[in-house]
């Protein structure tokens, strides 16, 4: 029996070229990455935080190869672009939250920054649309040396924007996902 290919599997051939990775020995929990993301994306932050034992670590979208958020979106607002980045089409998103619930890593915020009352003010777009990390495509798409804003602002050098093979060779983690277990990332 064969199954019809889903949108995610059909597009998974376009593999992400670069990812934001974190050096766990360098994150000082200053949240500069979250502030940079917030102010650069119309007050719709996509950098969230997970506490793991002693550490408070940033988590953002991993740009999955087979992205469940793309499958789950009823408005076809989530698409993978030519660079392999899963992006949300601004004017097609209806803010239903399906992608947030489908995300296995919980890195798509359903309610920005946990403040539904403030975020859902009628004069603001946030809360009516889902925020989604696009790796600052406005600057990284045309410049191979450009980095997303969260990486540019990181004062300790913990965040890097690099090829996944380079990250794995250096023992760096893709941020997001594996930050739920207690003491998983105990510092030296």
């Amino acid at each position, binding site marked *: 029996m064969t199954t019809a290919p889903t949108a995610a599997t059909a597009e998974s051939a376009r593999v992400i070229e670069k990812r934001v990775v974190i050096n766990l020995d360098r994150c*000082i*929990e200053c*949240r500069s990455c*979250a502030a940079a993301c917030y102010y*650069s994306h119309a007050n719709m932050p996509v950098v969230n935080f997970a506490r793991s034992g002693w550490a*408070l670590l940033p988590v953002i979208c991993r740009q999955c190869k087979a992205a469940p958020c793309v499958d789950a979106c009823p408005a076809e607002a989530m698409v993978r672009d030519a660079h392999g980045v899963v992006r949300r089409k601004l004017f097609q998103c209806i803010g239903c939250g399906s992608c947030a619930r489908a995300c296995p890593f919980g890195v798509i915020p359903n309610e920005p920054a946990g*403040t539904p009352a403030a975020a859902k003010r009628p004069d603001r777009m946030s809360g009516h649309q889902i925020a989604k990390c696009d790796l600052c495509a406005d600057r990284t798409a045309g410049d191979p040396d450009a980095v997303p804003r969260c990486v540019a602002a*990181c*004062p300790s050098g913990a965040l890097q924007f690099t090829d996944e093979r380079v990250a794995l060779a250096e023992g760096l983690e893709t941020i997001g996902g594996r930050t739920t277990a207690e003491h998983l990332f105990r510092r*030296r």
Partner: protein
Amino acid sequence: MTVELQGGANVVTSPSTTQAVPRCTLCPAGCELRVAAAGPDVVRSDYAVRPAYGPCARGSTLGELIGHPRRIRRPAKRTGGRWAPLSMREASRAILEAAGDRRIAILLDGNLPIEQLAAAAICCERWERASLSLVVEPTDRELLIGLDAGGATYLAEDDLASCDGFLMIGDVFAADPRLAKGLLDRRAEQPRTPIAAIDPGGGSASKFASHAVATTADGQRATLAAVAATAGLDTQDAAGPDAQRAGTALAGCKRLGVLMTAEHGRTTEWRAMGRLAAELATRRGGGVLAAPAGANALAAVRLEAQLGTVPLAEVLAAEDTLCVAVGCDVLGMLGWPDGTATCFAAAAALPNATTDAATIVLPVAMSVELGGTWLLSGERRVRTEPLLAPPAGVPAPAEVIAALAAADGVPATTEPVEAPLPQRRRGDKEPAAPHPAPRGAPVLVLARSPVHAGAGEWTGHGSWQQALAGVPELRIAPSDARQMNVANLAAATVRVGERSATVRVRTAPELAPGTVALADGYAECRALLPGRVEDGRIVCEPQTASVSC
């Protein structure tokens, strides 16, 4: 990078500082700032396309604050609980009428370009009934006086990678996140680099320590002295096992970096700690990186003596004086929002605890809107450009003071003001060692916040900070939390005497039992541990607190 001797101090000039650019003024790292239009009347912070290692979360807020909806743009007077708009001339006359025959004390934010401080000093010198006080955080002032007295060599963030050992006092990563890079670069290169930490508040920096030195809320100076004793300094303090181990680990250092931040509500002995740290670093061939609140704290502390200004403690102790705060939230900083003292008039960019208590409020430019000379970390004299011009009709701090003086008949000067070179302070006497009374548990201390600057008078208006958490976070050891029956992330009330604050609890395994730590970036938190004038300085001590859900 070139190093030259100037005025007895090491002046480091790096190539990146030769071109004047807008810089963040919230800490001495002085990160470059950029803004971008986010709409016809809205600007937001923007970031370099390549890794720039800043600005941090506090600096990111500045772009938004310049055009903030709550920005004070014109003078106003409180009458019957409502604000009535005034002209600058009417406001000046009202202040002079309220002063009558009394002296007028100008409390000027010390975190301003040196040219602004010098211009204000010249104006107040000609204005006979006025005295000028440069306001910096009292704990920072004490620490920097102690460092100067100890002959400290000041390090910049870029110098840290060449250090071969580190001693961190307080949560230095929260005070100046940028210094983490140099330290962590060195550790990546030499994984066995010794990193000792003395922090009873259990901040994020202590998590990176190879040698965490256990200490109590009152015991920071004694612990530092015990570490210093292992370097041969005569401190007469017995070393505990942790301090002994840390001192032994640092003994092989040929270039020790001592990183310090003077947090509120920790100790009354910052001056002694500064001198000790300077001597220890010198003995180990290194230097000190102090991380005060405000980019120009060191210049303000040095210029206080050079420009003939009056220490804040002296102003607050004086009677029959009308206080005018210019650019600083002095009541919020001291934890005095409830009428312990008042400023009749307050000039501020955004509402704060001082403007809330004032009768007359004046507009004033923010420090990032003023170009000028700053003394950043490593004693770098750096010239900056304004990030943006202040809104129309909003004067610079020196112009506010000149307008008040002009209304009192003092003619304005037209000569341009040059930035004087801040000289190292010498000859400040060290206060007698205090004998703190025994306290019950838990003891409340304040801790630097990575997301708020000062008492949050500016950053508290940031939309990101408001979305992040409206209430301050209280760190508490898990065993203490169980004993007090408070749960992680629960809302709780902290009480010190009759004062209280609503907080959110976070259990922190890194914190020693018996101590609870509260972020200092909120005026309500500082009000729990208010400063007091003692022996010609302002001190702020830990206190016994109670925590309940």
